[in-house]
Structure formats: structure tokens, C-alpha cells
């Protein structure tokens, strides 16, 4: 057995995912009771001790973020659950919210309690209407039990409306405020000036679910899985040419090859059965060759050695019939469509890369592409422009993946 189930609930559980029975069964009621009896500092120390890092892509240490928001000046503070999940090949937050919506919400309430926020938002992508209903049910349960609601911590769902950029934290704030979801210039950072200029703590769904299971147990239990460097488990979303596509919870440090091939995880490469490449971390992720896949583990340092990152946890598998130029062209179009257009390097850069891709120049105009990529990384306001060229650059750095040259 390679699969772990801690963030994801036990498959034998018969209780409704949003029911009070589930809350008790998962130990989440105890987690809330425990956190409510602790000081802000003690809660933050526990989160810091666990070593949890953000699961939305950037892997920022969660305890540090909570501490900043806690210390920030301001009468009013906000907490936000980021469930916008619009990254290519990414669906782990959806599965987590479908199977166990109370976990992330309990994490959100603990976050609010720790930093002194009375108002929480859950921002969910507009295409997840069914998931949103599940989330609403779970909020009802927590309200009925007296943990959430007006006078306690008021939790409000906000539905996105089809804008990838709205997942970027400052764009998301603008979206909630009723403005165009365009990213803001940082600094100031959300921890100091987020929603309506107040200190705001924003976390990914999976990060918050980690907090819930941490408080349902303790840091020692939390570290029973994972590596010395990174305790705990990670949700990975397997898709593409893989026998068993889906979301799996695995310990940090697991060999990537095992994630793909273990019978209870990916079950092996599908399609032709021969692996061409894995795209790790989403549209702005890194392509890994079969050799690199064979050598890497799911941990920040191991992947960093190949210039890769876990990103959103997307693991997209391509067999050797896939033309990676076709994949890159699709990615290029996506970024050109989704760039908000505020900054010139991103607006023009994403457009140019798409044009070059459409004209079949990806393998020949490598110098131009590298220059464009560098300009975008250096001069874009937000992560979209900064990371849009990454997948492409990762292939330029791996000539072996350009099968057709």
C-alpha cells in the first residue's frame, strides 16, 4: 500500500461528507475545541512546528504567513480559502472538497481564530457548481454547531466566473471587492494589505485541510509521514496517459516512478505504454524526461535539482505518441488568452510565444523565445507572466524531449 488517507477521508466512512457525524469522525470538532482553547501564538507555533508549506503552488511556509498577519496592524482582518483551481491538470482541491469539505473549512476557522478575523471568504471557481453546493452544506453544518456564522466567524462563498488570473491572490481580492480581477503590485503584501486594505490571510484548500488534520492530532503524528525536510502528505492529480487517473494522497519523498507505476496509484503509463515526458505542476510547470522521472522524489529539494517544482500537484503524463509542440502551443494559447494585459512584457510576450508556436517555430527560434521568456520573468507584475514561459523553457533545456528535430 502506497496510498495514504489522512487529508482524504477513510474510504469505509459511511457518513455524509458535510455532516456533523463526519466532523466528529474526523476529529475536527476536537480540533476546533483544542484550537479555541489555545492562544494565537500557540496555534501559530503549532503550524510552524508542523512545517506545512502552501499547497497552492508557491510553497510559502504557512506558519510564517500566519505570524505576519497576526502581527500586522489593523482592527479588521480577513481570511480566504482559495478554491479557484483553474490550473491545467489540477483537480485535487475539487476532490478534496467533494470528499471532505469540512476539513478545509475547519482549517479556515482555525486560521481566522488565530489571526483574529471575523469574516472568511471561500472563493471557488464558477465551473465547480456542484462542489460549491457541498461546500455550502458544510458551512451550514458548522453554523448549526455554533462554530461559524454571524457573530462568530462569518463564512461567505464567492463564486468566480471564468478567469484563471482571479486565482492569483491580489486579483482574487479585487474580484471579491467587485472590481476587475487584475493583480495588484506587490508589495504591499496581502499579509499587510489585502481585502479592502486590511491584513488578509489567504491559503489554498489543501493547505487548510492540512491545518485541520494537524489540530485533530499533533505535530508528531503529522510527521509520521514524509521526509525530514518536508513532513506530511501531498495530494497529486494524475492525468493523461496513465492507467488510473485520479487524485492520490502520498507521503512527501515518494519516488515519482512509484507514483506513476504502483498498482494502487497510477498503475503504469497508458496509451502506447512508453513514457515521453511528465509535465509537473501545471501549465507553468516543468517537463521531466523519463530518466529524470526515474531519479526524482516528490520533495522540493529533489525536484529542485531538475529545476522542477511540485506546483499545484498536477502530474500530467504523456506517452511517446504525443507531439510536445502541440502541447506547448495549447499552453501558449492559454496564457495569451488569460493574461490580464496590465503589463506589457506579459501581454506581448504571451502573444508572441503563441504566434511563434502557431507558426511551428518552437524548435527553431529558441534564442528569441529565451529572450522573451527572460523579459517576462524579469518584468511581469504577477506570477502568471513570470512563470508562463517556464514549461517551454524546460523543453528548450531538454533537447532530448524534442523528438521530432
Amino acid at each position, binding site marked *: 500500500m502506497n496510498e495514504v488517507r489522512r487529508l482524504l477521508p477513510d474510504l469505509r466512512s459511511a457518513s455524509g461528507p458535510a455532516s456533523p457525524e463526519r466532523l466528529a469522525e474526523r476529529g475536527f470538532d476536537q480540533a476546533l475545541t483544542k484550537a479555541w482553547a489555545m492562544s494565537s501564538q500557540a496555534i501559530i507555533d503549532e503550524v510552524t512546528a508542523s512545517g506545512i508549506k502552501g499547497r497552492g503552488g508557491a510553497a510559502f511556509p504557512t506558519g510564517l504567513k500566519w505570524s505576519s498577519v497576526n502581527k500586522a496592524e489593523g482592527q479588521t482582518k480577513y481570511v480566504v480559502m482559495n478554491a479557484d*483551481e*483553474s*490550473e*491545467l*491538470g*489540477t*483537480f485535487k482541491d*475539487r*476532490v478534496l472538497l467533494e470528499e471532505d469539505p469540512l476539513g478545509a473549512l475547519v482549517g479556515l476557522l482555525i486560521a481566522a481564530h488565530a489571526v483574529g478575523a471575523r469574516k472568511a471568504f471561500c472563493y471557488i*471557481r*464558477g*465551473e*465547480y*457548481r*456542484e462542489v460549491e453546493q457541498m461546500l455550502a452544506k458544510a458551512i451550514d453544518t458548522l453554523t448549526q454547531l455554533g462554530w461559524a456564522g454571524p457573530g462568530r466567524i462569518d463564512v461567505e462563498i*464567492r*463564486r*468566480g*466566473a*471564468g*478567469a*484563471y488570473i482571479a486565482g492569483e491572490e491580489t486579483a482574487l481580492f479585487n*474580484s*471579491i*471587492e*467587485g*472590481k*476587475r*480581477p487584475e493583480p495588484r503590485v506587490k508589495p504591499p503584501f496581502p499579509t499587510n494589505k489585502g481585502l479592502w486594505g486590511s491584513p488578509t490571510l489567504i491559503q489554498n484548500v489543501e493547505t487548510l485541510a492540512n491545518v485541520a488534520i494537524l489540530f485533530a492530532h499533533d505535530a508528531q503524528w503529522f510527521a509520521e509521514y514524509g521526509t525530514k525536510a518536508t513532513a506530511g502528505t501531498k495530494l497529486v*492529480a*494524475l*492525468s*493523461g*496517459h496513465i492507467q488510473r*487517473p*485520479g*487524485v492520490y494522497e502520498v507521503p512527501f519523498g515518494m519516488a515519482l516512478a512509484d507514483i506513476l507505476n504502483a498498482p494502487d496509484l497510477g498503475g503504469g503509463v497508458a496509451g502506447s505504454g512508453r513514457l515521453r515526458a511528465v509535465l509537473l505542476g501545471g501549465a507553468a510547470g516543468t517537463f521531466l524526461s523519463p530518466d529524470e522521472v526515474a531519479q526524482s522524489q516528490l520533495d522540493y529539494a529533489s525536484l529542485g535539482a531538475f529545476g522542477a517544482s511540485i506546483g499545484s500537484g498536477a502530474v*500530467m503524463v*504523456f506517452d511517446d505518441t*504525443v507531439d510536445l509542440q502541440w*502541447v506547448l502551443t*495549447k*499552453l501558449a494559447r*492559454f496564457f495569451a*488568452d*488569460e493574461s490580464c494585459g496590465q503589463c506589457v512584457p506579459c501581454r506581448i510576450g504571451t502573444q508572441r510565444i503563441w504566434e511563434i508556436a502557431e507558426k511551428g517555430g518552437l524548435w527553431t527560434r529558441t534564442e528569441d523565445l529565451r529572450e522573451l521568456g527572460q523579459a517576462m520573468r524579469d518584468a511581469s507584475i504577477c506570477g502568471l507572466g513570470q512563470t508562463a514561459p517556464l514549461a517551454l523553457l524546460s523543453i528548450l533545456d531538454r533537447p532530448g524531449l524534442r523528438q521530432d528535430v
Partner: protein
Amino acid sequence: MDTQDLAINTEVAALLQGMPRDRSQLLPALWRVVDRYQELTPGVIDAVSQSLNIPYAEVYGVASFYTLFDNAPGKVPVHICTDVMCALQGAGSLQEAAEDAALGRPVAVRESACLGQCDHAPAAWIGSQVMRRATPEAVRAAVKAVGHE
């Protein structure tokens, strides 16, 4: 103001009744009217603008940013995910089937970026329901059922 505008204004005001007249309610308000009208015509935008007391240009500027508010007049959008993962699993044939079935019907077939259903590719999204492991037959039937449910 002609009578049609007046009717829309009254209807929108009723739809948004109880919502605080606050800028932060704009996105939820737009969802309410889109769920009702599909398309955000100038008349609807104007009515929202008046109901929430937000300038027309601001409402328009926000509404036009979001893909899911950009619907064709009088047509129900049917979203086919044609992104990488679904394309590998046959999204192209779903799109053809949907377009074919949509001819002469109040349906607009739209290509969608990743719908977050890659474990059940290929996916489509019709009404507010996701179709997982969609087949051309299932998509055709769903398109034909639009307006009959």
C-alpha cells in the same frame, strides 16, 4: 426609457432585492442576473448599475472580464473542455457532436480551458452540470435536451 427597459429594470431590481447596495456585491449580483438572463445585454447591465448604484462603465468593465458572463444572445452555453488532457481523450469528437446537434437550437457550443475534470476526461459542462467521461452520443443528447428539462 421604453417599456421593455422598464420591465427589465423592475425584474432586475426584484432579483437583487435584499442585496446590500455595495460594490462588493457586484459579482454575486452579476451571477444572479446571468443565471436568469444568460446574456448581459446593455439593458441588463444598466439595470444592475441602477440597482446597486455603481456606474454603468464600471459594471460593464467588471462583467466583460469574466468568460462565463460572455454568453451569446438567447443561447444556452455548452462548454466542451478542449484543453490538453481532454484533447488527448477525444474532446475533438465531443465538440463536433455538440456543434452538429446545436444547429438550429438555442445552444452555443464553447471551447473551454481545463475544467478540472482531467481524471474523467473528456469533460463537458452543460447547464450547471458537469458531464464526465463524456461521449459524443451523450453530448448530443444533452444538447438536444436543452430547453426541454
